[in-house]
């Protein structure tokens, strides 16, 4: 009996490891390929090479004349960081109002907020583009950051409302006794206690903004405003299939920020997904 459960356990482990390794193999292969000389990348499907080089990284970094990936990374980081800070502040403000304060039309606005979670971005796409175009904001970071400052990521508001509702109201009441107003309750009670949901919001805002290829390709058309994903796309346009090594090298670099965030905040991410259904 014991032996058979042990054996079935072993089989499960082997199965899980084999499938997992198979799934991650392409990514691992890309990482090793990025360090191989161009001519050796496709010589075998294995991971090892008789020669290793950093040339791909050097060539890839300077993909086009005048502009290189340091500019693209700067742009990507700037946009993502503004998005994170903006979502943390404005989404939590709206969530605080919905979760704790009384005001006229509350139910209506709350229903509107819920509706926008499910609404595909395409329904507002053309007029939004027209607005940003008329404001002369195309080819600036504004179309990518101002919507975050205006808390359009309703999903995070919903997430925070749920969390704020779980914070005991007695804390608010005793704060009021101590002379705190509505604003102090927000800054001194709610926000410090909401750190877990704020971290979840920050992580997913960062990942989603970093990868938000659709908005970036719409609004950023000049090379100096390009983000990392748009920089990667340059390879497909200009040099075609001749320089896969360089493409892989920059692809690997583009994944590092997201992967780093993931491994630092892994616990929050997995818990966040499990408890809220948020997706990576």
């Amino acid at each position, binding site marked *: 009996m014991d032996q058979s459960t042990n054996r079935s356990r072993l089989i499960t482990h082997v199965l899980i490891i084999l499938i997992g390794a198979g799934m991650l193999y392409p990514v691992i292969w890309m990482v090793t390929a990025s360090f191989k000389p161009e001519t050796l990348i496709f010589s075998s499907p294995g991971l090892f090479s008789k020669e290793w080089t950093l040339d791909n990284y050097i060539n890839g970094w300077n993909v086009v004349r005048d502009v290189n990936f340091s500019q693209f990374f700067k742009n990507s980081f700037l946009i993502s960081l503004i998005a994170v800070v903006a979502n943390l502040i404005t989404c939590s403000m709206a969530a605080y109002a919905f979760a704790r304060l009384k005001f006229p039309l509350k139910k209506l606005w709350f229903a509107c907020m819920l509706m926008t979670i499910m*609404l595909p971005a395409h*329904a*507002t796409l053309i007029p939004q583009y*027209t607005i940003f175009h008329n404001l002369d904001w195309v080819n600036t970071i504004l179309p990518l950051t101002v919507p975050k*400052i205006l808390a359009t990521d309703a999903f995070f508001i919903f997430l925070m409302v749920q969390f704020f509702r779980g914070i005991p109201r007695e804390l608010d009441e005793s704060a009021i006794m101590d002379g705190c107003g509505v604003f102090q309750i927000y800054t001194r009670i709610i926000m410090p206690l909401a750190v877990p949901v704020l971290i979840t919001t920050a992580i997913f805002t960062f990942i989603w903004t970093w*990868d938000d290829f*659709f908005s970036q390709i719409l609004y950023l058309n000049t090379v100096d405003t390009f983000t990392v994903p748009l920089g990667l796309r340059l390879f497909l346009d200009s040099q075609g299939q001749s320089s896969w090594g360089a*493409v892989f090298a920059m692809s690997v670099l583009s994944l590092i920020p997201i992967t780093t965030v993931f491994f630092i905040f892994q616990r929050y991410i997995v818990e966040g*997904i499990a408890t809220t259904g948020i997706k990576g």
Partner: protein
Amino acid sequence: MKSSEAVTVSSVQKKTKISKETRKQYIAAYIFLLPWLIGFLGLVLGPMVSSLYLSFTRFDLLNPPEWIGFANYTEMFQDTRWIASAKVTMTFVFIAVPTQLIAALLVAVLLNKKMAAVGFYRTTYYLPSLLGGSVAIAILWKNLFEIDGLVNQVLVFFNIEGQGWISHPDYALGTIIILATWQFGASMVIFLAGLKQIPKELYEAAAVDGGTKRQVFFRVTLPLLSPVIFFNLVIELIKSIQVFTSAFIISEGTGGPINSTLFYTLYLYQKGFTHFEMGYASAMAWVLVFVLGVMTLVIFFSSKYWVHYEDGGKL
């Protein structure tokens, strides 16, 4: 008499005092709500109404929109590329969503045991979901399935002759479906959380009744997990119907070969932002919203027949 009058007076005074307090709170509430409210009115509600209007016009961004009634909508049904894009997207949704959910469920059941390294396995399987939406992985995928790519090199070992999967109209969509299925990890994590909620007593009772593993899975696990399946189904539907990045990168923005990867959102992008037929693109967007809405409603209404709530589904 006098005292009761006094009471009324003081209660009236109190009332006005409260309403002053209340008014202060209303103002404070609206200050907190203000960024969202501006965003909602200016970037969501306004544009929604406006795009509905634009869908009945011809509009190229530079000239004022010109009213053409339902012409954009009727044109769609004669537009072979639109029909192709609707077919591609529906094929994708109907294959990728179920395969992804089934893979997620199977692996979740496999991982839902007390054993060593579960946390590590969970991370491993989640990683593709984390990375999969990026341009980098789409580029990798494009390379994997090229004629001299990794997939064909591996197939040689099995004596299977490969081909340029990406450039073949019968297989190109398949590579994108595989990419989507590859990212089952996020759904799996949600399933795992759901599996942990199922009371142990039910399994013990099933064991006492002599249920086989298969019976336990179909009679206990699956019904109790149905709310989570429902949730994952809705989320994946919304996500899949809007797929863009992978199709754009793998087909280099064309939707080829022969429109085989012309996803709906990719065609919408082409119409709106390379042909500048923004009225048509708006109409396409509203058809998308409508179809997604209908599909979501169908799932919601069908849910009472297959989703099992412990508390009887009361809110």
